[in-house]
């Protein structure tokens, strides 16, 4: 780099600064950066690519033979709804991680010194991660198709199924922002996220029917939105699901409605909290 000379810069001073282009414009510019990051760091994408595919294969082939679906049907087909749900819950991870990394690299500070719309930084992260969350859903669908999973319902139901998954993704993005704002470092996010989110996705009908679970655990699992999201996906894709009996709690009887309630509740509660935690986390 030593054979360089900086020429005289054209540093005319503008008398009038540029007119604002609005929140959507700024959000998209920041989201595009996030997408570029994803493409340039494929190793950071393992949670959205290799991991879900690995889970599909692992559970389908290793445990598949040992787990019977009450009411009959192929375990592999039962499994898919659960893994879709688990992956969607893990969306929170990615957001929290990218936010914490940006803070560590002082990218957040850089953005804050720019004349951008308030909310554009969070909006950009949310949009990037919403788009990112489609990737594992597509990959897993393909992987599922390869091992014998099929959509047996109508197209409308299937679309509704995917929409429900994306809706839950969107809700988990705010949980991720909350997590990434409260916990300052990328390392902390990874640790805490694992401890909080991982059990949540296992104490549910993700991989095994809740009916075989003991006492209290079963109650937790039955009211766990990951259970109802898994069940809702199974129903909407026309896959085998544990037959509902009249003694089942309301959540199990109405998994779609119960999941939607959770989506709305998470957004209504955690979005404002997340925004506040984020603003508080900015080293003023």
């Amino acid at each position, binding site marked *: *780099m*030593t054979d*360089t*000379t*900086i*020429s*005289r*810069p*054209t*540093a*005319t*001073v*503008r008398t009038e*600064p*540029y*007119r*604002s*282009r609005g929140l959507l*414009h*700024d959000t998209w*510019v*920041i989201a*595009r*950066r996030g997408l*570029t*990051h994803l493409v*340039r*760091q494929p190793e950071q994408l393992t949670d959205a690519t290799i991991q879900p595919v690995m889970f599909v294969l692992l559970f389908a082939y290793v445990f598949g033979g040992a787990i019977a679906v009450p009411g009959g049907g192929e375990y592999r087909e039962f499994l898919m709804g659960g893994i879709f749900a688990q992956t969607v819950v893990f969306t929170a991870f990615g957001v929290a991680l990218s936010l914490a990394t940006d803070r560590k*690299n*002082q*990218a957040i*500070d*850089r*953005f*804050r*010194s*720019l*004349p*951008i719309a308030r909310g554009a930084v969070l909006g950009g992260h949310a949009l990037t991660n919403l788009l990112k969350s489609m990737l594992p859903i597509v990959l897993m669908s393909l992987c599922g198709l390869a091992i014998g999973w099929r959509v047996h319902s109508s197209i409308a139901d299937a679309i509704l199924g995917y929409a429900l998954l994306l809706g839950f993704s969107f809700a988990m993005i705010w949980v991720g922002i909350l997590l990434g704002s409260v916990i300052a470092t990328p390392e902390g996010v990874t640790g805490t996220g694992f401890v909080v989110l991982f059990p949540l996705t296992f104490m549910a009908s993700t991989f095994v029917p809740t009916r075989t679970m003991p006492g209290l655990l079963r109650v937790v699992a039955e009211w766990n939105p990951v259970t109802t999201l898994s069940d809702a996906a199974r129903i909407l894709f026309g896959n085998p699901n544990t037959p509902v009996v009249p003694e089942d709690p309301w959540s199990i009887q109405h998994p779609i409605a119960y999941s939607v309630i959770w989506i709305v509740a998470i957004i209504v509660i955690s979005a404002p909290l997340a925004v506040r935690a984020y603003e508080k986390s900015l*080293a*003023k």
Partner: protein
Amino acid sequence: MPDEYAVYARGLVRRYGAKTALAGVDFEVKTGSVTAILGPNGAGKTTAVRILTTLSEADEGEATVAGFNVRTHPHEVRRRIGLAAQDATVDPLLTGRENLVMLGELYQMGRGEAKSRAAELLTEFSLDDAADRKVAGYSGGMRRRLDLAATLVAHPSVLFLDEPTTGLDPRARNELWGVLATLVERGTSVLLTTQYLEEAERLADEIIVIDHGRIIARGDARQLKREIGGDHVHVVVVDPARLNDAAVTLSEVTGAHAVIEAATRAVIAPAADGVQTIVRAAQALGAAGIAVEDLSLRQPTLDEVFLELTGQPANADDAGVPAGGR
């Protein structure tokens, strides 16, 4: 606030817990001029820059930048400033060009304009060859150049440069100094921080010396030097045997004690009347028949000034004093 000032700060106080990073400082940057904040590690330089660039709020005091109050109109301030933070904050995963285009768009330019502006700056900062490589692979000097280019994207009227040449080799530093000089020629006002006395002396119209969050001296380089010690008359004699005679003569002329530096054949005495003292010294030495090799009026170096003002060498870091900065 009058347009006369690009930056106008009064009574800025900033505390971090029990630690007072800024203890009430007043300073300003006249429009179109360069002010340097000079201070050792932990003096409060970055803290001041962060307050003025809206990244942090002062606990007390007021500041306007480009005519807008940083507390009440941060957005208006952001539209008019460029900031090169102490740690390069260009995005390592993006290419140099992508960085500049993104910043242009975030400065609210159209995409087309942002692209052409980026191309222009890449050429000006000799980054054409590296333009489409990821910044992660840039050298420190290239990164710093990109950082500086990034601050200029939207033609800001006030530029904040937090230690812009730290970590650069002398050549790159010289180049950057050249760029800054050109910017100022074109009407950009600059507030820069530095630990280098030479840099402040070379670039700044006004120097603010801070230490432990307080301003301990201010003025242009000459004023600072004069403030302590003042000018000295410095005589180098041809014949070492005449050193004593020269000292006696100089003492008579200046009415003060003249010091002999035998190693350099020099005699030094305070020059209360500046050039007048020199003229009288020359006449007296001539009359006494003392051959003189060199006769000059000297100011203390800025390093000596700093030592005098802060009670510690300018590079306290090297002297083993723990660094307080972030």
